[in-house]
């Protein structure tokens, strides 16, 4: 198993932390992982992306131009990464704020209305966990038990009371993902 993922959106959406939780979940499942962020002067509101690789074997390059999965959370990232999905790969996006939807027919495309869903949950900070849930429903490369363990590792202990809420957000994401194009 080897899954090469790009998660891209605005800074502040939890793109980097979603990648970190996914990476930690992989470690809990005994996988090799790398987490390579875009780093730069961007702060909240700017663009941010992270490449996460989970694999059964040692990982060579942490830098990629093609991805098994692209998780796209704003228009700029759609413009930049739609072409980077491998043929037969998966593109998941939140339609909120997207004006140009993906055109490709050689990939699987799904949407997750995570802005609306996290608002319904009453916690907009659970946004990234709704998206993570959507991803895991299509690519169950780590099981939920290990994701919860990963969450515990990556969230400071003083915030562990929020874990049940995060778990609920992941489950909502798993349930509410919508398939737009299926190969």
């Amino acid at each position, binding site marked *: 198993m080897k899954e090469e993922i790009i998660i891209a959106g605005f800074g502040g959406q939890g793109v980097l932390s979603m990648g*970190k939780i996914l*990476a*930690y979940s992989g*470690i809990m499942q005994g996988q*090799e*992982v*790398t*987490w*390579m*962020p875009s*780093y*730069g*002067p961007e702060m909240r509101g700017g663009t941010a992306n992270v490449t996460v690789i989970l694999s059964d074997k040692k990982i*060579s*390059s*942490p*830098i*990629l*131009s*093609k991805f098994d999965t692209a998780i796209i959370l704003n228009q700029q990232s759609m413009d930049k990464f739609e072409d980077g999905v491998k043929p037969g790969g998966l593109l998941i996006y939140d339609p909120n704020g997207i004006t140009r939807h993906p055109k490709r027919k050689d990939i699987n495309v799904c949407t997750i209305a995570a802005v609306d869903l996290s608002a319904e949950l009453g916690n907009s900070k659970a946004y990234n966990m709704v998206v993570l849930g959507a991803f895991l429903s299509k690519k169950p490369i780590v099981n939920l038990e290990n994701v919860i363990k990963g969450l515990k*590792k*990556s969230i400071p202990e003083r915030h562990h009371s929020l874990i049940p809420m995060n778990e609920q957000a992941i489950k909502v994401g798993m349930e509410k993902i919508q398939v737009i194009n299926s190969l």
Partner: protein
Amino acid sequence: MAEKILMKGNEAIAHAAIRCGCDGYFGYPITPQSEIMETLMEEQPWETTGMVVLQAESETSSINMIYGGACCGKKVMTSSSSPGVSLMCEGLSYLAGAELPCLVVNVVRGGPGLGTIQPGQGDYFQAVKGGGHGDYKMVVLAPSSAQEMYDFVDLSFELAFKYRTPAMILADGVVGQMMETVELRPMKPRLTNEQIIEKYSSWATTGKTPGRKQNVVTSLALDSIIHEQLNNTLQAKYRKMEEDDVRFEEIMCDDAEHVIVAYGCMARICESTVEMARKEGIKLGLLRPITLFPFPTNEINRLVPQLKTMMSVELSAGQMVEDVRLAVNGRIPVNFFGRLGGIVPSPDEVFEAFKKAINK
């Protein structure tokens, strides 16, 4: 097996420093390596091991604080990125001239000048050919994973004290910022003052005791005869390093007809390029220098007879390629591929460049 922790290469440097018995860190923040001092400040090792962590007022100041600590036989280090290391070069020359051990970590970004905060490897010449003035060398280690960032801290100190010379970890923005799993090694205690006197009182300023000669640490020798002797001593050390402490890794070189030479993050990327080439039946291998000084010249020499071409791949305009060409000495073509400005090429981009070069 010890627990594996997900951390950035920069964070690994900080944890390794505390756990290998480092006495002091003196630094000044700069992207992409600020997490080193941030992690040290969070960990507060002055409360546990007694290690000093101090933010100096500039890089010039931090390198001179290191000079002071090293004079006393202490394990001291600093870290910075390219423009900051340029400010330290005067100090590095003095440290080398005074035969003082220390560790300087350079998490390289794109230059020249303020350049970019994105990854680069354009400081190769500065690290292995000098940077400061005079005929000196440093041990230069090039990590390509977070685990090596961790492990090379202890190794650098070991080599720095073995040869009484500054050691440098030449990393890059990718290796510094990337998170991977790191296994923490067992804790080593800091040396006590008594242990430092026992080990280093032949040269360090540990306080003169009756019966012991006065130790003078300086790089100044106004008598030309004495100064030439000092230089000869330094050169003899560098030759000894070349004999005993060259480190490198080879991937798929046994049957290779072509070899890519790359270090740091580019070695990881080129490893994927090698996998791509092998799938297409091209016998490509990878030589990854781990010590950039001393350089694996003899290993390149050994490989040349079986090869058609070599190619150096760097985040520079072509620096290490000069050392590869010196080793190959015109026997086979040595190609070059590099990107500048903080752009990091993907494995397929390197593969395309490789195929273009061999089909020329």
